[in-house]
């Protein structure tokens, strides 16, 4: 009886091991890529994953993550790395690289653009980092429901902060990045001086003082899917959003949301490789492929995010309905790019202050 139980236990364990084996990819090469879900992940699956799978026979698994370094840190520190490639923002990419959570990526191995321009010149500045390569640029904008305001909607960032002229709740991402830049811009700081001012204690005070004026009227969101919902349900009269979410809601769900382009803050998303992954070489191949001219241009078929290579922009046909919605398509109003270096250095301090300000 003893032996029988032993045997059957062994069989069960054996079967479990066999069942797990293919998932770890002993036979077929496999990659796990963590990104942000929604329409954005779809665009990456269509433009990067599928062609790469067809070309190399790799099986790519796509997962969603929250974008905080803690999730990566937990994997690296426990030695149990589940993801190979992550899509993250530049401040996290810089910090993760410094903390030893991400692998170095050799910029010399990036392929030249479709028009022959070397990669170093083809990428727009700031897209090639020691541990990450930029793939898209998206924009943070204010959006509102046209059904609510008609032609008299908010037109500038100042309107977003004006609760007398535009009463009602407004949505903001629960994050100091973008929020503080907007507070300063709405308070009259010139686009070029935002980070200079925000780099001083007096500038930080000034930003929070401006935020105090709308604090009671803010609904804070955390996930990118929330702002279109908040607008649709009438919970807010206007909201900070990633511009792609609004454009796709308009084009695919027949919504009538308008974008206030004034004060748009452009932020890149980058691909990086988690340190300690067993598929490092394959992950490098994938990033080189995904960040080459054609896949970057193809991505704009599914979401209006701008490619990070100049050569890719030329490959997007005028017939693409998203082309006029790219962040740089000549929109009115002030426009700036996030300063990732600034956010890497001051992010923790400002986040601490922001969390304390919110909680009071």
């Amino acid at each position, binding site marked *: 009886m003893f032996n029988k139980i032993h045997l059957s236990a062994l069989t069960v364990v054996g079967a479990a091991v066999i069942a797990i084996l293919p998932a770890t990819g002993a036979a077929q090469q496999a990659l796990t890529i963590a990104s942000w879900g929604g329409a954005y992940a779809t665009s990456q699956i269509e433009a990067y994953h599928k062609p790469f799978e067809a070309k190399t026979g790799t099986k790519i698994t796509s997962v969603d993550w929250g974008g905080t370094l803690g999730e990566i840190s937990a994997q690296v520190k426990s030695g149990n790395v589940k993801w190979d490639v992550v899509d993250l923002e530049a401040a996290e990419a810089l910090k993760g690289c410094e903390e*030893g959570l991400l692998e170095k990526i050799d910029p010399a191995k990036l392929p030249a653009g479709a028009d022959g321009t070397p990669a170093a010149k083809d990428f727009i500045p700031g897209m090639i980092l020691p541990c990450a390569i930029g793939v898209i640029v998206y924009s943070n904008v204010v959006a509102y429901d046209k059904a609510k305001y008609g032609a008299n909607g908010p037109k500038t960032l100042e309107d977003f902060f004006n609760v007398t002229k535009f009463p009602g709740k407004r949505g903001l991402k629960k994050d100091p990045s973008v929020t503080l830049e907007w507070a300063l811009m709405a308070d009259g700081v010139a686009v070029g001086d935002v980070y200079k001012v925000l780099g001083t204690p007096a500038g930080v005070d000034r930003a929070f003082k401006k935020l105090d004026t709308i604090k009671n009227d803010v*609904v804070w969101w955390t996930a990118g899917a929330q702002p279109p919902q908040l607008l649709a*349900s009438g919970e807010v009269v206007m909201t900070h959003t990633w511009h792609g979410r609004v454009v796709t809601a308009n084009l695919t769900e027949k919504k009538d949301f308008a974008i206030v382009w004034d004060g748009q803050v452009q932020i890149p998303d980058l691909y990086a490789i988690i340190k300690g992954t067993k598929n490092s070489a394959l992950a490098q191949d994938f990033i080189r492929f995904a960040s080459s001219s054609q896949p970057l241009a193809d991505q704009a078929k599914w979401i209006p995010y701008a490619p990070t290579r100049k050569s890719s922009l030329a490959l997007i046909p005028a017939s693409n309905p998203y082309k006029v919605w790219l962040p740089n398509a000549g929109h009115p109003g002030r426009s700036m790019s996030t300063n990732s270096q600034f956010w890497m250095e001051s992010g*923790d301090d400002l986040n601490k202050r922001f969390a304390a300000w919110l*909680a009071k």
Partner: protein
Amino acid sequence: MVADSTTALGQRLRKAERRGHFWAYVLIAPLFLFVALSFIVPLGTVLLNSVYDPIISDNLAHTVRALDAWNGPRDQVPPEPVFAALAQDLKVAVQEQKAGSIANRLNIEESGLRTIFMRAARRVAAQEEGPWTPFFEAADPAWVQPLIWGNIRNLAAPTHSLFFLSALDSRRLADDSVAPQPEDQRIHITIYLRTLGVALTVTLACLALGFPLAYLLAHLRDKTANLLLILVLLPFWTSLLVRTTAWMVVLQKEGVINSLLQALGLIAEPLPLVFNRFGVVTAMTHILLPFMILPMYSVMRQIPASYVRAARSLGASPSTTFLRVYLPQCVPGIGAGALLVFILALGYYITPALLGGSTDQMISYFVADNMGRSLNWGLASALAAILLAAVLVLYAIYDRIAGPGNLKLG
């Protein structure tokens, strides 16, 4: 012959008992393993993380030793050998991609130290040999100020209480004294009080709603009671996230309740029911209600109806009967339900995050924020450890007041 068979019998018996014990252990082994892996190990890790923080002692080992050897007063800058040791440590740290972690660790204690540290780290590889004091001074004049050195000395031991100080809104300054955090960073005590307040409100709301329902369930015919019990348990079949989101749909500005009230002409403007404390308490009460009802129901069912009848027949009024005969017998159920709801409510995260405003977040939100965004796992662990301690203290107080027998979970 007889003696022989007794010994043989005894041996057989012992053997059988041993086998019985063996199988008993084998059968509980999976549970034991599960509890160890999923409960004791993580909890132990959290407690360890809240005091154990070897980043500085591991990566700046030579510097720490040189500082110990010098051991000068806190308002002075250490001599050249300490700078030389730091240069030695820094070269290795840069090579091993550790400089960023050290800089971030220092910055947690004092804003701005990250930049100062990284300036030196970026230059150190290019410098072959000393004197090192001028090298560091050229990298950043702050290196010849006592501030950064005081902070390095505070972090020199691999175990320290800095995370707990920070969790209680205090900090250790460069001169080794303990002071409150700056006004604009003092939040944790407020959040702990808020967490207790929300949990208490939810517990009271659950009690007020749950007691009559449990009474009803306990006094109905079995068939009807079972049907109603299924309705009580029904919410358990849906995930927490779904129930929370459903409340958002119900409570939002153009949601079910506001539309109804407006259609009835009772209100002109929609009421703010969500993204505030009301929304959080409402949803949490709904989600936690079964945990209150079930223990109360099981206790109430075991109270013999004859006690109440006896009290009435001896002339007690209905209210006296209820207060002096029925209610005291319910106490174990009330205690168990209230404790269960209160403790579960203390750790709530998703519901306040989705239905609350910025001033309705509870302590778990700050634990998650420190884990994910700031990578300050030590502070997150200390915050969690204090919550754990608070729960244990509350339980001990309850136990003292109500007595160990007055807790009945079913």
